[in-house]
């Protein structure tokens, strides 16, 4: 198949970017979206052009490094990571727009690469458990109700890709933050720091300049891991709880 790409090119954070059009011929429909970009980049390199910068690592949908906005939708038309999207999802002759995540706390570094350090700082503000980790304990040493374990596990699958922010009309990172809060706050090991965690992570979320959530739900609709919407209500409950119980 032959396609036309319109790609956001921006040499560095200081310079203005713009959309540049490239034709890509003989694309196999079995290629992943990133492989298609690889093919284009090889050609650009041979032609002495600067290859298109994009983030990626595992290419199997588990690391959360990849992610671009394709035709206005984070990770493109399927609810999966960009590396797991294949060219068969597009029609022959399609014109495909490719842009970086857009949010004030995610500044563009180059082309399609953005700085997601804000997520690391949200994790540093409470997305951990302050106990020494020895070897893994026996699985049945601390019983956890099945429904809590399931919900915590669902929340824990968040790969911190940032698609939720890129999709949110408010530029909010509430789904990411809620996934991390829910994961730890549902489990026994998370209880001692339950309220300082949620308050600290939400404060850092706000400090980074992310917007407030208005429960529109675009985040869960594009999330490659299907992080459930209810994690946000879970976060809200704990945050309101910390107003009362978080006085230490």
């Amino acid at each position: 198949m032959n396609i036309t790409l319109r790609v956001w090119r921006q040499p560095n954070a200081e310079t203005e970017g713009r959309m540049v059009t490239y034709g890509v011929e003989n694309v196999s429909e079995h290629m992943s979206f990133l492989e298609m970009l690889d093919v284009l980049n090889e050609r650009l390199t041979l032609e002495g052009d600067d290859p298109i910068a994009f983030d990626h690592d595992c290419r199997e949908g588990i690391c959360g490094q990849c992610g671009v906005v394709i035709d206005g939708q984070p990770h493109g038309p399927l609810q999966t990571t960009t590396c797991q999207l294949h060219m068969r999802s597009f029609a022959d002759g399609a014109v495909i727009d490719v842009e970086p995540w857009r949010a004030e706390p995610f500044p563009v570094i180059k082309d399609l690469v953005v700085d997601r350090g804000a997520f690391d700082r949200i994790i540093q503000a409470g997305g951990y458990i302050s106990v020494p980790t020895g070897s893994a304990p026996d699985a049945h040493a601390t019983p956890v109700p099945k429904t809590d374990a399931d919900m915590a596990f669902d929340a824990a699958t968040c790969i911190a890709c940032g698609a939720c922010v890129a999709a949110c009309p408010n530029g909010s990172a509430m789904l990411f933050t809620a996934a991390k809060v829910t994961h730890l706050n549902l489990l026994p090991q998370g209880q001692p720091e339950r309220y300082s965690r949620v308050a600290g992570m939400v404060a850092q979320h706000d400090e980074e300049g992310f917007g407030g959530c208005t429960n529109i739900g675009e985040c869960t609709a594009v999330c490659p891991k299907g992080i459930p919407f209810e994690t946000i209500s879970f976060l809200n409950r704990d945050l309101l709880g910390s107003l009362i119980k978080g006085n230490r």
Partner: protein
Amino acid sequence: MATVSLTPAKKAARSTVALKALMAVTGLIMLGYLIAHMYGNLKVFSGRASFDNYAHHLRDIGEPVLPHTGLLWIIRVVLLVSVILHAYAAIALWRRARVARGGTKRYVSPKARRGVQRSYASFTMRWGGVIIALFVIYHLLHLTANVIAPGGAAGSPYQRVVNGFQIWWVVLSYTIAMIAVGLHLRHGTWSALTTLGANTSAAARRRINALAYVVAAVITIGFLLPPFGILLGLVK
């Protein structure tokens, strides 16, 4: 910002989530008022005496524990505080969101401007809220103060209503405002309950959304029945 030294409770109180909860609570207070107000309006269908008695009775509820018009003033103060806090939070979050999303021109691609799954109502919250605020002022000048008196001023509340709603453009202006209120409540009811923690499962989500549709429809239609009843000559 030196947030390091704050207790979790203080951090939580300053957060966008707390601001949202404030919006939710004040919004629900106003919604409670709207339901009572709509119910009162429907009394025009039982005639002048019933409607005017009701309007009069509102002024002496609670006597002698409360002074004359005491309850009315309590309600007015609570509503005024609610509107101010609600609008303050809305504007603060609106400004924050506009910066956070990276400006008004976010994605160059025109292909997903309407989002993936979002409701039409969710697009109308901010400008719709402004329309509702302007309408509230117009409405108070019309039927409370009677400074704006299309169709003629009157001492009887019943007469004011009937005079006004015999005029097509008055009915049109109220219709536009009530559609804005309906859309606001469609997303607002859902959003308020979610903000306060009620969205606990896919089933809860379905229930909250169904409730939001019912609330929006009942309020919009309930408020529009009297104006249309009068315009069509069913109430004289």
